[in-house]
């Protein structure tokens, strides 16, 4: 049954009527945010002190940017050469078990692409695939693994392959992952113990990468966060307002992406910020998460990405410059839709398409039948869906 077009039409009319007013309100908030950013730019120390006070007092879980040392309304360039770097990018994909199908199975597929810039050699590609079957499919509480559980396994596998390849490829300088550097998903996991275990393993891996002097970064494409905007809101809030910080959003709708699209010229990065968030207690000392924004677009067509780095990288300006230059060069390869080429290749390699999933399922069914196990038929719901889709 198609969507109710009459209702959609009415809703679109309402959108159209409301959008003018919303646009005006957003424009006012954007102007205000940009003005506040410029006005607060030289006040690095008071800004930091205010966030620290909030994090220690009214809201320890507040999520916002914390200025470090660079002026926050300026753009910074990098001219460093990218020749002679060994880059590793990782990505992963998953198949979540579906009880409606004939065979209950899951898959974790992670890929690493290792590219040596200036070598004239094709990159090395490593793929690790794990089939989850039988007891592997159940979480600690005996329930069937959820999408969040499988995603956590995938994240952990991505981090493991990154560490393994970094250790096996001496001279690796930059290790890139798609998305934030923080391990996410605590609230989506059936077994909190599993998340804690994966986080401990991840933090240990980060420490090892620090000891190897590796430049580790997470690339967040089209970021939706308002970390710097939140900082500005906190800066403007009175003591009373800070007590109700969660409902205080005078700059609602303004994103950091918009803010820095106004500040950064093509190729420039923002100041480096520290990340204030709930997870700050776990990512401590050299592992503390920092980030900067970078304009990987062209003149007049800003494309802002967020790059997350641990403190040990943020503290080494040569590493930040090399990372900055490498990201620009990698993004430049994909032209008008900039994104790091090597990350795209890791994604392309790791992705399990529907056809591939079906082939793996068929092979599994054959193996089961050969072993004398007759798989259950698919559910009526699944069969009916297939019929209506065909």
């Amino acid at each position, binding site marked *: 049954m198609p969507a109710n077009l009459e209702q959609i039409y009415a809703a679109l009319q309402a959108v159209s009527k409301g959008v003018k007013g919303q646009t005006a309100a957003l424009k006012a908030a954007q102007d205000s945010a940009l003005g506040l950013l410029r006005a607060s730019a030289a006040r690095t120390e008071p800004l930091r002190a205010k966030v620290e006070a909030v994090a220690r007092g009214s809201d320890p879980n507040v999520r916002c940017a914390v200025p470090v040392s660079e002026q926050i309304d300026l753009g910074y360039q990098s001219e460093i050469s990218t020749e002679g770097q060994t880059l590793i990018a990782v990505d992963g994909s998953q198949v979540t078990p579906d009880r409606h199908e004939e065979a209950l199975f899951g898959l974790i597929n992670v890929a690493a692409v290792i590219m040596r810039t200036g070598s004239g050699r094709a990159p090395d590609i490593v793929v690790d695939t794990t089939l989850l079957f039988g007891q592997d499919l159940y979480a600690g509480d005996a329930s069937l693994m959820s999408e969040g559980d499988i995603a956590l396994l995938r994240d952990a596998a991505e981090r493991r392959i990154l560490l393994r390849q970094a250790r096996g490829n001496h001279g690796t300088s930059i290790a890139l992952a798609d998305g934030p550097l923080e391990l996410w998903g605590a609230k989506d996991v059936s077994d909190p113990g599993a998340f804690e275990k994966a986080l401990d393993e991840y933090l240990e891996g980060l420490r090892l990468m620090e000891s190897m002097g590796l430049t580790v970064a997470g690339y967040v494409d089209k970021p939706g966060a308002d970390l710097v905007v939140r900082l500005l809101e906190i800066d403007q809030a009175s003591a009373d307002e800070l007590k109700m910080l969660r409902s205080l959003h005078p700059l609602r709708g303004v994103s950091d992406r918009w803010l820095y699209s106004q500040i950064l010229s093509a190729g420039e990065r923002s100041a480096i910020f520290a990340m204030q968030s709930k997870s700050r207690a776990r990512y401590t000392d050299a592992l503390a998460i920092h980030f900067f924004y970078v304009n990987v677009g062209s003149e007049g067509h800003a494309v802002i990405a967020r790059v997350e780095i641990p403190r040990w990288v943020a503290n080494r300006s040569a590493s930040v410059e090399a990372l900055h230059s490498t990201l620009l060069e990698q993004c430049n390869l994909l032209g008008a839709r900039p994104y790091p*080429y090597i990350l795209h290749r890791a994604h392309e390699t790791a992705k399990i398409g529907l056809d591939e999933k079906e082939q793996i399922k068929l092979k599994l069914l054959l193996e089961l039948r050969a072993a004398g196990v007759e798989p259950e038929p698919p559910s009526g719901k699944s069969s009916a869906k297939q019929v209506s889709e065909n």
Partner: protein
Amino acid sequence: MDEQIEVGRLLRTATTGFVAGCRVNQLVAPAFGALVRAPLGAGCHVYGLIHDIHIADDGLVRQLVTAEGVSDEVLLDNRERRIVPVELSVLAVGHEQDGQILHLLPPRPPLSLDVLFLCNERDLVRFTSSGRLGYFRHLLRSDELPLAELVTAHIRMAHAAHRDGGRWKEQAIQEIISLMRDDHAGLMSVLGALSEIP
């Protein structure tokens, strides 16, 4: 058939011809006009001539062609590591059954994913000297083939393999003239192309 040069695996097949896919780094071996063979099982092989080599693009390649300063690493990545679809189109021109070569279409097509082998010079001489060049009619039956170029590429390769002072080549050209005697324009085009063979 002592030398086995694998040039790809079959994607789509029919009795009249088939399409094989290969990796870009396998593309050194197969050439336009080359004789190839695919197994049919039970001592049977189908022979064909490569009449088109097609390298398809994809979204990433389209983005890269507009980029400046694409490094060697990225080029090699796309050519050697990515699944760039290179397709070889083959016209079936005969088959072999129990050691006997027949210039007739095969009894059935090969199966998808079967390996496609490039024929060596010995195979080429054996196939082209068997019978009376009857396989030329398969080339002439299609209007969509680049006939003059395909015939010339094939005769040039076979002539080099025969090493008989040009005797086989003369015989082949006479057969082409005979088969195309009612198509003056087509024949002139083929003879024009054949005159390029030294």
